[in-house]
């Protein structure tokens, strides 16, 4: 058994090493065909042509067309230049026809600058473009503020500067619909299209060598636990002797890996195209020949990690049916709702929506693209949107009232699901100090407030988008753009907090750092749980011996013992009801229950702990 375990570990490490090494193989070369395959498939044929031709020209000028690069790093360092150059070329090309040309500018200057004085006016524009009302309107709309009845230019140079800046913007905008903006998605597409080598040639093989070996090795390591751990029961033996689970060197390594992984995934996805190529065959099961995005890679990794570590949970807690049912539930919701349905819905022209993901955790629910995406998908799309609203506004509070927030956080939620499976070995690392509880409350409710403000902006924007499509500056409220606020929220909360810190820090801060300090949905449900719910963790009379297992293994950092040793039930907004405090308690003191709150029975500390008859009689007198 021990040997199987050790072999499993070696197999896993080989798979993991191949996975890491796969980032550093292959070559990168962009060709006309590749560009065509990327951009010439859009429905408007002339658009694709324009983009491809321009990119090709720019690539030739930069001398990178058909040039082979030995790594994604050197290849991608040219992409900003390529895209900017191509976009600028497209604008310049269009300026002749629809914009203001250099010759026309000279014409304007001839009339607008007389004897070193600026006399720019509407008449000047009308005169220069006497045969072109379109250009007349364009220029009047954009430069009327520079006419000499509204602005006096003392220096000719000032006028020219303003005018040329404005022109740049006018001409620049002309090509916008043909632009391939320089962002992480375009870079990802280009690097992926350009990639070549053993991985792109043998995707299936590499899928086996990475995912295959890792899953196989992990299972070989995990399954013998059923026998090696020695009978069903709580087996936390050696948790604090193990470098992986006590912030030792293995934990630090895991932390560094996770940190790099999340930073690459969120901010530099074009550097990990090889990993996405590995899962292309899997993506192909949903859409034939489709190319996997970084999000598909992430979804696959996420679901696979949860499933494998879910099996570990089934073995570790095989004596505890609450843990088994709960783990089966999070796996079900991850595999079906968060993964499969999100892949399948778009096949029926429906929005790729995770139907269990509730606002405000699902923070982009009211973004314009999401709202219009639903409204453009017909009745089912609208129904899905309405479901999202009903889920947050009605289902969530009602369910929290009856069962506590655990029904979501440790039974349904994807973040919670990962925490309860992949993160379970790290649960004891959450900080239990009072000061941390104070920090927690400040942080999580601040994020909740931010989420509400951000949603108001996004909602206002979407409302205008749907009802007043012709309105200008639809996104601006109180002088701030919804786009900016959304972007900042997505960057700080959606990516850095939920991803990089939330999961990256598992081996350091425990498995619920996001859920405890950052999740706005947890904050929302926490308020309901604390003030209006039947849920509590019951303390069993006077049986507590203050051993501290409950507090140690509380992933939310609740000092459970502080309540239990007073004979007080535990009612805390942050409790996700994982049930592990009850599982690890050696004296049968703790139990998760939903019950009425009669005479303060839910959370009041008893004046006398059950057992001290003398003191009870004395105080009753």
């Amino acid at each position, binding site marked *: 058994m021990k040997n199987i375990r050790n072999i499993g570990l070696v197999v896993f490490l080989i798979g993991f090493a191949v996975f890491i090494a796969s980032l550093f193989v292959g070559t990168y070369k962009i060709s006309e065909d590749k560009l065509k395959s990327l951009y010439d498939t859009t429905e408007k044929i002339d658009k694709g042509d324009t983009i491809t031709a321009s990119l090709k020209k720019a690539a030739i000028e930069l001398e990178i067309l058909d040039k082979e690069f030995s790594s994604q790093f050197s290849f991608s360092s040219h992409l900003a230049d390529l895209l900017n150059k191509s976009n600028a070329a497209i604008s310049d090309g269009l300026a002749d026809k629809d914009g203001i040309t250099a010759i026309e500018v000279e014409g304007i200057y001839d009339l607008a600058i007389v004897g070193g004085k600026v006399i720019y006016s509407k008449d000047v524009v009308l005169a220069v473009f006497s045969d072109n009302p379109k250009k007349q309107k364009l220029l009047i709309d954009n430069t009327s503020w520079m006419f000499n009845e509204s602005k006096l230019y003392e220096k000719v140079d000032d006028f020219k500067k303003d005018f040329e800046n404005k022109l740049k913007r006018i001409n620049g905008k002309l090509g916008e619909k043909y632009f391939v903006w320089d962002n992480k998605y375009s870079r990802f597409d280009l690097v992926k299209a350009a990639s070549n080598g053993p991985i792109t040639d043998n995707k299936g093989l590499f899928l086996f060598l990475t995912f295959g070996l890792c899953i196989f090795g992990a299972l070989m390591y995990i399954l013998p636990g059923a026998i090696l751990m020695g009978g069903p029961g709580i087996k936390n033996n050696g*948790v604090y002797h193990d470098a992986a689970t006590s912030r030792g060197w293995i934990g630090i390594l895991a932390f560094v890996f996770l940190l790099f992984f999340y930073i690459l995934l969120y901010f530099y996805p074009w550097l990990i195209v090889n990993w996405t190529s590995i899962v292309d065959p899997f993506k192909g099961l949903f859409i034939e020949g489709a190319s996997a995005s970084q999000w598909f890679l992430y979804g696959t990794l996420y679901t696979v990690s949860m499933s494998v570590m879910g099996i570990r949970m089934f073995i570790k807690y095989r004596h505890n049916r609450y843990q088994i049912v709960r783990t089966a539930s999070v796996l079900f919701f991850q595999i079906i709702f968060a993964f499969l349905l999100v892949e399948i819905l778009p096949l029926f022209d429906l929005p790729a929506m995770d139907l269990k993901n509730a606002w405000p955790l699902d923070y982009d629910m009211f973004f314009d693209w999401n709202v219009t995406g639903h409204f453009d998908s017909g009745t089912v799309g609208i129904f899905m949107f309405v479901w999202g609203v009903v889920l947050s506004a009605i289902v969530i509070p009602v369910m929290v009232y009856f069962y506590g927030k655990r029904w979501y956080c440790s039974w349904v939620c994807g973040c919670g699901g990962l925490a309860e499976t992949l993160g379970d070995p790290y649960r004891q690392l959450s900080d239990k100090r009072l000061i941390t509880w104070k920090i927690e409350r400040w942080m999580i409710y601040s994020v909740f407030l931010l989420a509400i403000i951000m949603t108001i902006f996004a909602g206002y924007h979407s409302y205008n988008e749907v009802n007043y499509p012709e309105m200008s500056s639809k996104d601006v409220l109180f002088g701030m753009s919804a786009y900016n606020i959304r972007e900042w929220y997505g960057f700080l909360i959606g990516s850095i907090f939920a991803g990089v810190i939330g999961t990256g820090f598992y081996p350091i801060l425990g498995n619920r750092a996001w859920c405890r300090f950052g999740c706005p949905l947890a904050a929302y449900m926490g308020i309901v749980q604390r003030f209006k719910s039947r849920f509590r963790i019951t303390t069993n009379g006077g049986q507590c011996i*203050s051993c*501290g297992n409950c507090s140690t293994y509380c992933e939310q950092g609740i000092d459970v013992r502080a309540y239990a040793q007073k004979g007080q039930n535990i009612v805390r907004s942050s409790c996700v009801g994982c049930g592990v405090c009850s599982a690890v308690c050696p*004296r049968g003191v703790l*139990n998760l229950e939903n019950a009425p709150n009669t005479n303060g029975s839910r959370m009041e500390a008893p004046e006398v702990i059950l*057992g001290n008859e*003398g003191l009870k009689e004395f105080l009753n007198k």
Partner: protein
Amino acid sequence: MEHVVIIGNGISGVTAARHIRKLSNKRITIVSAETDYFFSRTALMYVYMGHMKFEHTQPYENWFWEKNRIELKKGLVETIDYSSKTLSLSGGDQVTYDKLILAVGSKTNKFGWPGQNLKGVQGLYSKQDLDLMEENTSVLKVERAVIVGGGLIGVEMAEMLHSRNIPVSFFVREDQFWGNVLPVKEAEIIGKHLESRGIDLRFTTELKEIISDESGRVKAVVSSNGEELACQFVGLTPGVSPNIDFLKETDLETEEGIVVNQFLETNQPDVYSIGDCAQFSKPAAGRNNLEQVWYTGRIMGETVAQTICRNKLAYKPGHWFNSAKFFDIEYQTYGWVHSKLQDGEANFYWEHKDGEMCMHFVFDKASRKFLGLNTLGIRIRHEVMNRHLDADSTIDKVMEQLKDANFDPEFYRVYEDEIVAKFNVEQGTNISAKKRSWKRILGVG
């Protein structure tokens, strides 16, 4: 300001300090030689097993003491002068008191076995014992450990060693596990469970001698049947007794422990004793004169705090209860289930077919009054059982409301219907278990 000095920072001493602080403004000092801060003694095993770090066994953060104006003094009390109310600490420090609480705890029993002080031979009670055990089992490889004494600490030690893959032979003097407490059926379940985990259980076996190697470390033990067993570690766990050697032959009245009346007062003015070390001159009905469990220590601390703060209160615990865990089997008890049925008692016993779960009820044969319950593998709600005992419920009522008493986590299999059916067959009754009622459980309506 009156100065209350407490010797011992275990559960009873610390509870006394906390409650005196709640009730008064007195100056409070806790003196301990064991550790800087209060920790849960019962959790030491989990530190060795790697479930927790030692810090996790400390129920209060370190700032707690200063915030609550409880002074902590590390030091070993050598002598007490009751007339000048002065403690002398090793190292020469002196501390004077107005009120003194002796909460000095226990020490491991040693019965004069040859070789009992060899290296690699130890008990398990204090933090120092834990450190010693870590050392004794890591300096050189332990091929086999022998544990002597079949009680709670013995089984804890066995579990600790087992967690590090050290083979354990377990000498038990009686013919069953924890013979003075557990009825034979429960003891059999525990015995089988221990054996299933690989413990070499040897009943009716006593320790005769511990044999030393040339360096003064244990190399073998000789058992009462003459067998010599090679081992590198010996755990002595034949129970504990009050840790009062330094108080003997002084003006303080001591016997096995420090003799106290029902108010926890000793024979010396302004000197009290609580916890493991207190010996009641007249124990409460049905209880021992020494009570060495966690919660009785806590209750004595709560009680003496009232007395010291001018609400003179007698120690009066409620119905007996206790719990423990033997490897993976949890044990709970409410009321009295003696190892042998007492006169006039009847019992009802149910065991799960897998043999790792049971419920054992004891009641008065004539009146059918419920007297006590032992359970293995099923958690029971303390309040519900306590209420039955308070109300002198009959066994039939306990059966009828058995579902209220279940405290197992959600989705666990329940056996109340099966248990009640068996009860009906054996007792010729016709009880059907009522649905669980929150009204009854919460004591309303």
